[in-house]
């Protein structure tokens, strides 16, 4: 039985109150496949009394509902959604509207302003240029220039902020990034243009400055869009995995609240079969806990009063009351976080490709432009025309194409990765993936499936097996859940009674069925035989009256395509290594089966980091694939890291990318697409360089008119963007976003994350 039906959610912690007395709630909705779902959900909810607005976001699979708390409540809303056939989970309001989203809006606004201003100023500039060669009067030209200044100065002051701010930030720290030459170029060009206008000269460069800003903002926005999209899907996944806890309030009430509202010292209840979502000590109750996600250990561990439990572990068959310590010092989570911070610090020495390019370019560009200025001045054409030429050198060089070169590729590649079921967490991971020559795997949950599978299922007759599965479905014990996962079509048996700590029993057609420990089922003798055959397995017995009892051995099972993936990795010349916290025998068995020669078992998070650092010191570029809390620091320490979407929360945050689904193949795709993306990024940088080699001498020679500079700039940006489109994978399986997303959810092992 799932106890969640009886416990109320603390809705005030999830919803926000609007000024007009209504309440608003954000929900992640499962099972939206098509536009028809959108109207069905909206109509279905709007028909309820008291619901004033319901709007589905089809792109992100989210629903926003506004209702009048006097007339209805969220439980009714969720019931209606369920009856319509959609599962929904409330968002933790602490993370609904992220900074990234606000930043995205800021960039779009800046982009709009830059676009508007550059169009109008370009119109005026073209008139001036054509007038210069025919019959424009000085008054008209001055008027046009003043008008341009009037439009440009406020527009540039607004639209240039993302660059000015970032340039100022790094300059203060004594570094240079791409934004520095951009900012200097734009500000100098504006300053000079105003000066030229005051002196009613023939040329001003307002349009160049604005166009530069516009193109760069496009690049910046693309870069942002990519991260935003990944982020929103990852957030949906966490919402669907119910990042909540059952909090025991001082008045004895028990309500479900989001994790962000839990503090150290609070009491929470963990029900049978539920994932523990906090670190803490057990106050009352005793149970068995599956710690595979935390330590890699596959056997169930007994916990009782006073024992420590960790977030990410799976509770067995008894309820536990836990006093939360997650915020206090000395917990496993603290230790892991500290290790992650250290490891991240060590990695931050790595610079993004574009920034490194800028660091090389910037001095060259600045020196070239400064030398140009001095040379022309000494030549005797006056300081102002010299400065004009120097600025055109500064503007015509790298920033524009360079600003687009990397983000454009990242956007295309991350889209391609997404269709191959990989969510990119950090955009610069693509650049790091390409030179990986060693892949380190965690065992439990990574090479093997997160939940144990049955290894001797075919030994028994199908009818009894189906009965056992039907019985197992009535329980949420990790072992039952694994048995239940063998066949999803079988429906749970009714009238099941559960004896705490022993097992389940039910009446079926006059027979008594029992499922549970070998002792409970009277199968001690059979259990001994199975234990000899499968020494590493946890045992689960099933007894029917008048028949020999069955004893199932539950062992870690490999992900379905693990063998092929490992073989392909080997074929492509990667060194492979398994680092696991599990017992040596279990690791050895898996390593032999996969043909991986190097493995280490029973090691701690600190050892994992040490091993990876050692490999890095030997010159290896290491990719770590892991899912447990104990892997998180190692994930942060490796050059690149990947974790399955079923991983512990901390590990997901520490890794560069997440992969969805039951297969290991996304690891290959990530390597593949990352390599390709890196190649295209480098091509783009070369294209930008080539363009500079051609354009800079012309600019230094003083032959660049503003029109040519503008055309060259747009041209180079276009070439770079088109080249980026090639970053799509050759064999892009046409998953629509929806399919990939929903598959990921369905693929989670049953019972793994019961809300």
């Amino acid at each position: 039985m799932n106890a969640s039906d009886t416990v109320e959610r603390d809705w005030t912690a999830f919803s926000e109150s609007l000024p007009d007395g209504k309440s608003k709630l954000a929900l992640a909705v499962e099972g939206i496949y098509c536009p028809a779902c959108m109207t069905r959900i909206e109509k279905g909810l709007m028909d309820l009394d008291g619901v004033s607005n319901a709007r589905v976001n089809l792109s992100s699979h989210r629903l926003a509902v506004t209702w009048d708390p006097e007339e209805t409540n969220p439980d009714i809303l969720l019931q209606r959604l369920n009856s319509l056939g959609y599962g929904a989970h409330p968002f933790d309001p602490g993370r609904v509207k992220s900074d990234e989203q606000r930043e995205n809006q800021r960039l779009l606004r800046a982009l709009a302003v830059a676009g508007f201003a550059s169009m109008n100023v370009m119109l005026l500039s073209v008139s001036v240029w054509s007038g210069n060669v025919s019959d424009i009067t000085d008054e008209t030209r001055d008027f046009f220039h003043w008008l341009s200044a009037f439009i440009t100065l406020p527009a540039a002051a607004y639209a240039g902020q993302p660059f000015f701010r970032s340039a100022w930030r790094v300059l203060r720290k004594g570094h240079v990034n791409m934004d520095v030459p951009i900012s200097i170029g734009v500000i100098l060009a504006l300053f000079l243009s105003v000066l030229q206008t005051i002196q009613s000269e023939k040329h001003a460069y307002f349009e160049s400055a604005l166009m530069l800003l516009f193109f760069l903002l496009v690049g910046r926005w693309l870069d942002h869009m990519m991260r935003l999209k990944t982020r929103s899907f990852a957030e949906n996944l966490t919402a669907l995995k119910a990042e909540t806890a059952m909090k025991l309030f001082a008045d004895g009430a028990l309500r479900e609240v989001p994790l962000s509202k839990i503090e150290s010292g609070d009491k929470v209840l963990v029900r049978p079969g539920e994932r523990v979502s906090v670190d803490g000590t057990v106050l009352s109750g005793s149970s068995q806990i599956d710690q595979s996600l935390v330590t890699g250990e596959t056997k169930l561990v007994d916990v009782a009063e006073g024992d420590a439990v960790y977030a990410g572990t799976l509770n067995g068959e008894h309820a536990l009351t836990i006093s939360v310590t997650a915020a206090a010092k000395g917990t496993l989570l603290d230790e892991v976080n500290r290790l992650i911070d250290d490891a991240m610090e060590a990695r931050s020495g790595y610079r993004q490709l574009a920034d490194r390019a800028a660091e090389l370019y910037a001095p060259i560009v600045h020196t070239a432009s400064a030398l140009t200025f001095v040379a022309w001045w000494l030549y005797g054409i006056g300081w102002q025309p010299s400065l004009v030429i120097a600025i055109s050198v500064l503007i015509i060089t790298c920033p524009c194409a360079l600003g687009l070169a990397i983000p454009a590729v990242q956007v295309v590649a991350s889209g391609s990765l997404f269709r191959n079921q990989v969510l990119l967490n950090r955009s610069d991971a693509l650049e790091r993936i390409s030179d990986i020559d060693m892949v380190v795997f965690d065992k439990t949950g990574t090479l093997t499936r997160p939940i144990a599978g049955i290894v001797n299922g075919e030994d028994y007759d199908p009818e009894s097996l189906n009965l056992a599965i039907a019985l197992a479905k009535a329980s949420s014990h990790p072992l039952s859940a694994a048995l239940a996962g063998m066949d999803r079509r079988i429906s749970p048996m009714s009238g099941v009674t559960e004896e705490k700590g022993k097992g389940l029993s039910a009446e079926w057609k006059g027979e008594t069925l029992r499922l549970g420990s070998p002792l409970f089922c009277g199968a001690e003798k059979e259990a001994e035989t199975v234990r000899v055959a499968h020494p590493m397995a946890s045992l689960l017995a099933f007894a029917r009256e008048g028949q020999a009892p069955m004893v199932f051995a539950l062992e870690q099972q490999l992900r379905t395509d693990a063998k092929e993936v490992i073989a392909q990795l080997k074929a492509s010349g990667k060194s492979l290594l398994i680092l696991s916290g599990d017992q040596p025998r279990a690791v050895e068995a898996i390593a032999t089966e996969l043909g991986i020669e190097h493995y280490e078992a029973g090691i701690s998070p600190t050892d994992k980091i040490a091993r990876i650092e050692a490999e890095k010191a030997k010159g290896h570029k290491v990719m770590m694939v892991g899912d447990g809390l104990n892997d998180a620091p190692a994930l942060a320490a490796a050059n690149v890291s990947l974790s399955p979407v079923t991983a512990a929360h901390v590990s997901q945050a520490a890794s560069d990318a997440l992969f969805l689904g039951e297969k290991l193949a996304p690891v290959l795709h990530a390597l593949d697409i990352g390599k390709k993306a890196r190649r295209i990024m480098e091509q783009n940088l070369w294209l930008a360089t080539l363009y500079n080699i051609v354009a800079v001498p012309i600019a230094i020679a003083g032959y660049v008119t503003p029109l040519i500079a503008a055309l060259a700039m747009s041209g180079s940006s276009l070439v770079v963007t088109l080249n980026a489109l090639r970053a799509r994978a050759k064999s892009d399986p046409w998953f629509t976003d929806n399919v990939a997303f929903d598959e990921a959810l369905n693929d989670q092992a049953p019972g793994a994350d019961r809300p």
Partner: protein
Amino acid sequence: MNALLFLIPVALILGGLGLVGFLWSLKSDQYEDIQGAAYRILDDDDLSPEEQAKINAKSEPTDKKG
């Protein structure tokens, strides 16, 4: 020259209107769900009963013939 005196303000005002329009649509979250918006156009359910009746009245005769 005289034409410019009003053409330039007109161009600026029209462009400015476009900009204001974009900023307004951005602020009112119209770019939150571009995929969904494409399908909402096809949805007739938001029509008032009278409008619905009008459409039905128009399409009914042809339906009967068919």
